[in-house]
């Protein structure tokens, strides 16, 4: 075994040894097999024939014809003909293979034969892409959801992740904000981590897609989404791997589920097919905040004054003759909120061409997408170009190249949770205060930015460039045995520039303009080897073995410079500023992995498979670097059993179960295990050093154990399909930023501490309700539950309005329970939990959480003649939302003239005996600032997410113009929302940059309601 010796010489270090040995053993096994081939030629018969396409009759060039039991092969020529001179005697069995067609086996008893091959597409329908391979859905042992590109093509949003909302069971998707191209809250089967990532792994055509945001200049809680770089138009299908058996092959990256995206590719021997798609949409807000009028403000502020014992003749809103600003009824109501919203256009153009000849396949896709936010002036634009090429050198060797070039442009504003943001300025500034000063300049009468200035004067752009490229080579060593090597780069860069001139709150004198320019870059290099072996014996024993390794390196860099003091407002670049400060940083992480999977199926009836992945991460200390993540699954297709067949009820009946381990190290700092000091702690213009973090040499992998049982049922020849899953995920050794006593000089240390469980049921139902030729109705429905519990946590952790503590779920809201308002004096009465007669932090309690009890989607597709109608609902029931907008605006007089109020404030307590939940107006005391569960609301909703109506032009009409297909359609998004939520939209999360907060609403505009019209054209 010479090869092993050589490999050992090249071995890098002992730590890699375990996985390496495994890899070598498997390799050696195949080599042994590879050399055990012998042939003996002899001439006994001559066979002639032709090979053609069964549908088109086209002659097929280069098909391979093999006589079973021999190694004797021939290849069809330009006329599709072949000629055999062989040692075999008639009759014998021919095996005809041609890429893109089903392999045909037939017995021949004389010459000539004409063979017709069926295209492979029919067979492909039920193939499911899984980690490092594809499997027949019928024989899957694990839980995988599939979403076709078709299913999501009319949804007018920027990112593929956002399109998944409601489409698959067990996948919780919620938009954080109405800003296009910004982050999405997505969880596959719950949240299993506190400080490591909870986002699923995205894999595009086998290459990891980095989803680390490159935004470095804060806009107040929101983050740009790297997933929006991917053009949804390029997507052929999306598979979501949910259980451990499916994800364990991704080892340390699989704990949060895996989203596998397959992009469109050309097919061999196809004429070029051109697809053009276009749509235009207009979006509006679905709801606005009910701010109080000038009159109402005047009444409430006067009431506050009098309640607090102020003199009547000094009340804030008194006649001008008495030195006041006028009576309440004389106050203006300036609608700032209306000023910031717009009817926002969306434009999308997709052009693609796909095809292939006998050796080469190609797909070229171009996309331009532009979407304005409903709140001015945010905009997201994307131009992308994708090339997918495949080249078959010979029957054994194939290479492929994918290149995706993306350019994104974003117009941004500090839009969410900051006083200088557009929405804050419009919503929080009391309505009776002026928008402009008498001299015409922007008025800023309260703490907040003038919303018109924020829209007109802010310069804030983010230009992204992304190059994702992959080249792979595949070599068929033997029938069924393939070697594949793949090299990828994912390069993502963002250049953000902002400039706040002297007319803006941030840049006004004496600052005289402030601008920042930041360059952020993330480069991921991946190399991967894969050997797979597929074998079917006697048509009953199905065997697959896959082994491989991955090397991955990720480098993140950021450089930024800030300048202040610009000569005039016309100068916007840092170079023109009086003084500049800058910074630059860089960080790196590596991952080395080995993996393997074996599966065996008997007669497509009993299936068993097992996989293991070994990962080494640079983020852990030397002794804890390696993590091993095994998984196994079994499935039984009872419908293949005679006694079930006899029932004549099921067209499919499958039971499956799996169990396995996955790991997580994503999202923690690159050097979390080390004791470090950092520089840049400046004093007297000198840089100093300070302790930065404590070492934890024991830091190791966070591990999730998942158990899954599933049931698949098909009725009426699979016209009705039902899939039911139950899962139980249990995460141990949580990578936790464990708070420690700050007396140590450190607030926390990264440690493996705590446990979290997620349990849930998932049900999905697909039905071809009506399949009449003229009228069809397909329905799909899914519903999921997830019960999340922090099973173990040494100490509770407070974060904003939430608490993480043992025995409660993540995203639990922590507040004082308001029992009511004392009818006698109008003060709030809170529950005194510990009964000490005082209101203190000990009386805080968990008052609800942001998890829905159920969530899912319900879709219907109708066709009638050339018309198609798509009606899709999604829903979330039982989730709570902390409405911080109401909390802040419900200040009850304590911030009169600074913060606007909402109309609900008019229900305040006024006179003894009043029964209300809104306390009396007062600037004193703590009525308004104590965190009351009055602002925690039921965020349940059901929403008509998409409604689209399409019409296909008659083929006869098109044939003249050589057009194969034209579809015109109109669609509406977020048309109807049914909810009791008092805010503008129950689909909200202000704290997009804090993964431990969900369902927190603060001054965020609603999701857009979009109307669109478009067409798809193919020729």
């Amino acid at each position, binding site marked *: 075994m010479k090869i092993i010796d050589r490999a050992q010489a090249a071995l890098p270090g002992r730590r890699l040894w375990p996985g390496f040995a495994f890899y070598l053993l498997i390799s050696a096994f195949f080599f042994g097999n590879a050399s055990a081939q012998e042939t003996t030629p002899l001439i006994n018969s001559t066979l002639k024939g032709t090979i053609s396409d069964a549908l088109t009759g086209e002659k097929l060039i280069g098909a391979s014809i093999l006589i079973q039991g021999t190694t004797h092969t021939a290849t069809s020529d330009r006329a599709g003909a072949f000629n055999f001179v062989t040692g075999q005697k008639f009759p014998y069995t021919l095996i005809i293979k041609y890429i893109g067609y089903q392999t045909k086996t037939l017995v021949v008893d004389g010459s000539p034969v004409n063979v017709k091959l069926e295209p492979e597409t029919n067979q492909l329908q039920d193939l499911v892409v899984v980690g490092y391979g594809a499997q027949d859905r019928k024989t899957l042992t694990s839980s995988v959801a599939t979403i076709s590109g078709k299913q999501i093509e009319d949804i007018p949003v920027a990112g593929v992740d956002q399109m998944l909302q409601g489409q698959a069971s067990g996948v919780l998707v919620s938009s954080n904000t109405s800003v296009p191209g910004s982050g999405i809250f997505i969880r596959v089967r719950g949240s299993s981590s506190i400080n490591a990532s909870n986002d699923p792994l995205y894999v595009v055509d086998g290459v990891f897609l980095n989803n680390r945001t490159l935004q470095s200049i804060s806009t107040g809680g929101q983050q740009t989404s790297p997933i929006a770089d991917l053009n949804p138009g390029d997507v052929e299908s999306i598979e979501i791997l949910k259980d451990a058996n499916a994800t364990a092959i991704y080892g340390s990256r699989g704990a949060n589920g895996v989203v596998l995206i397959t992009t469109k590719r050309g097919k061999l021997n196809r004429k070029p097919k051109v697809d053009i798609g276009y749509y235009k949409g207009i979006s509006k807000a679905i709801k606005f905040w009910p701010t109080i009028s000038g009159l109402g403000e005047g009444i409430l502020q006067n009431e506050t004054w009098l309640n607090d014992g102020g003199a009547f003749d000094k009340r804030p809103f008194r006649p001008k003759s008495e030195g006041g600003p006028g009576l309440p009824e004389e106050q203006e109501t300036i609608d700032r909120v209306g000023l910031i919203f717009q009817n926002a256009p969306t434009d999308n153009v997709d052009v693609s061409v796909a095809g292939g000849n006998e050796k080469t396949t190609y797909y070229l896709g171009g996309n331009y997408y532009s979407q304005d936010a409903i709140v001015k002036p945010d905009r997201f634009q994307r131009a992308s170009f994708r090339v997918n090429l495949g080249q078959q050198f010979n029957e054994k060797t194939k290479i492929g190249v994918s290149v995706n070039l993306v350019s994104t442009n974003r117009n941004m504003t500090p839009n969410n949770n900051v006083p200088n943001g557009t929405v804050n300025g419009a919503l929080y500034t009391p309505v009776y205060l002026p928008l402009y000063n008498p001299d015409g300049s922007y008025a800023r009468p309260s703490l907040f930015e003038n919303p018109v200035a924020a829209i007109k004067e802010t310069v804030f752009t983010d230009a992204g460039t992304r190059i994702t490229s992959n080249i792979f080579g595949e070599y068929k060593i033997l029938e069924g045995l393939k070697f594949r090597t793949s090299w990828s780069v994912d390069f993502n860069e963002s250049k953000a520039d902002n400039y706040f001139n002297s007319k803006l709150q941030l840049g006004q004198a004496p600052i005289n303009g402030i601008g920042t320019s930041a360059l952020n870059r993330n480069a991921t290099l991946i190399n991967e080897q894969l050997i797979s072996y597929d074998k079917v014996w006697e048509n009953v024993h199905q065997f697959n073995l896959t082994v491989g390794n991955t090397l991955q390196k990720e480098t993140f860099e950021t450089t930024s410079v800030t300048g202040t003091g610009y000569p005039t407002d016309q100068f916007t670049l840092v170079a023109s500023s009086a003084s500049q400060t800058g910074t630059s940083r860089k960080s790196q992480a590596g991952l080395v992995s080995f993996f393997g999977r074996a599966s065996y199926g008997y007669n497509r009836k009993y299936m068993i498979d097992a996989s293991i992945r070994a990962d080494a991460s640079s983020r852990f200390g030397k002794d804890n670097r390696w993590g091993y993540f095994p998984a196994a699954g079994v499935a039984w297709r009872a419908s293949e059993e005679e006694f079930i067949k006899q029932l004549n009820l099921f067209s499919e009946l499958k039971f499956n179960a799996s169990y396995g381990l996955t790991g997580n190290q994503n999202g923690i700092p690159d050097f979390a295990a080390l004791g470090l000091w950092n520089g840049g702690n400046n004093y007297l213009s*000198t840089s100093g050093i300070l302790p930065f973090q404590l070492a934890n040499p024991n830091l190791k992998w966070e591990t999730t154990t998942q158990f899954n049982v599933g049931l698949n049922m098909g009725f009426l020849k699979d016209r009705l399909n039902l899939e039911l899953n139950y899962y139980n995920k249990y995460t141990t050794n949580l990578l936790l930023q464990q708070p420690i006593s700050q007396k140590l000089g450190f607030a926390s240390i990264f440690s493996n501490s705590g446990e979290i469980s997620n349990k849930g049921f998932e049900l999905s139902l697909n039905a071809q309700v009506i399949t009449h030729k003229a009228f069809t109705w397909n329905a799909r429905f899914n519903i999921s539950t997830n019960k999340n519990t922090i099973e173990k946590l040494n100490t509770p952790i407070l974060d904003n309005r939430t608490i993480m503590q043992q025995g409660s779920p993540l995203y639990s809201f922590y507040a004082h329970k308001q029992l009511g308002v004392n009818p006698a004096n109008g003060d709030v009465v809170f529950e005194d939990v510990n009964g000490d007669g005082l209101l203190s932090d000990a009386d805080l309690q968990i008052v609800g959480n942001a998890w829905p009890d159920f969530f899912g989607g319900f879709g219907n597709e109708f066709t009638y003649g050339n018309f198609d109608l798509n009606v899709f609902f999604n829903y979330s029931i039982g989730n709570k939302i902390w409405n911080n907008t109401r909390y802040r605006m419900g200040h009850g007089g304590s911030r009169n003239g600074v913060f606007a109020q909402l109309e609900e404030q008019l229900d305040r307590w006024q006179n003894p005996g009043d029964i209300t939940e809104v306390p009396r107006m007062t600037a004193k005391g703590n009525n308004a600032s104590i965190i009351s569960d009055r602002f925690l609301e039921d965020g349940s909703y059901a929403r008509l997410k998409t409604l689209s109506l399409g019409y296909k032009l008659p083929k006869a009409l098109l044939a003249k113009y050589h057009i194969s297909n034209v579809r015109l359609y109109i669609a509406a998004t977020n048309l109807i929302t049914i909810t009791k939520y008092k805010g503008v939209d129950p689909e909200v999360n202000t704290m997009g940059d804090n993964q431990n907060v969900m369902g927190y609403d603060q001054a965020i505009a609603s999701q857009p309601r979009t109307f669109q019209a478009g067409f798809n054209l193919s020729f």
Partner: protein
Amino acid sequence: MKFKSKYSLIWAIPFLFFGSSCKDLLDPKPLLYVAEENSIVNKKSADAALIGTYSALGQNNYQGNTFRYIVNLADDNLRWVGNSPSNREFDVHAVFATNTSVSSLWGALYSTINSSNNIIQSVPKVNDQTFGQADRNAAIGEAYFIRALAYFDLVRLWGNVPIITESTRNPNSADGIGNSTPAQVYKQVGDDLEVAQNLLPASPVTVNRNRASIYAVYALKSRLFLYLGQWQQALDYADLVIKESAKFSLVSSYSAFFNTKNTTESIFEIDYTINNKNSWAGNWFASNLTGGTRELLPTDEFIALARGPYGGDRKSLLLDINTPPKGIITYGNMNFKISTGENQVYALRIAELYLIRAEAKAELNRIPEAVEDIRIIRLRAKAKDDDLNGLSDKSQVITKVLQERRLELAYESHRWFDLIRRGLAQQVLGISDVNKLRYPIPRQELLVDPALKQNPGYN
């Protein structure tokens, strides 16, 4: 066999790649950081650690902003008009243990202490011939001073706080260290200052007012003894600085002190430059580099006092905002009106020592001398001093000292503590519960540290 070797070449690709890249992949260098064991290893790194300690002292969560925000908002010179409701708790004296500002300040104080402890422990062990004993002493002396300042602020705000004097190397290194009594903490402050006094150069030729000098130690000692009611010592240590008139004197125009950095008025002035800014000015103005939020405004009572006969030049601290909404009067006319976050913190200045001496003298029944010290401050501000004539009663003089401190040292984080140590806080600020004169230990601390106990009146 030919067949075999041809493919083993392809198979060799990953092995070759492995050999060259695996080590790089799994052992990337933390470019932004140095390992703990390489932190203080020679004179240069010890100097850097000391600079780092000053930056910890000046960080926004401590002297830069949060300390000043809390302490000044608690007194009767400031009112809150801000955005984030939890900050209002200081104004209405109903602070919750979950208050994030309390927690940030607590954390910043102990991180300052930890970095001082690192210097105190590591500098003597550094093996570097070029690092002479005098330099080492000075570095350690400065670290002791900074630690004393931090503990002094801790005991003034919380009373019963844990005393940590060892640098932290692992999360268990201070297990079991619980609350000390205020007396113990004050003793720690005194001890640290004593050590600092012995280590720092006794009579430096020049004074770097941005670093701790022996005079800063004297001044802080004087303040410490004032708080402890040890009047003679307070007086003595004040004298030790005041007599160095070549180095420390009242600048002749009150505003000159605010307009210029490092005047003779300053004993210890925490410096801010474009490379280390603070966000204090943002609390007052609706504009500032850090996003001005205008959360604080002077009380009407303070405005009346500053613009009254005894305010003198100190009225120019106030600033009428002329842009709408009109009628807002804020503070900071002199020092950070033109601020870009580079305004100084006046941690110790000579005017305070005159007033400490006045109070001490009054307590020691040296009434005329006490009055003279007040008069010095009053006249420098070009304010009327007729009310000081003929004072003979000790308590009258002390009332005058307090009022003078309120004006002269406005918004320099003294008033709240003055009211408390004089027993006037409850009456002046209308606080019914005496426990509210101390802040709660952050709730998260109590959750993680079984050795700590909450202050009375909180839970």
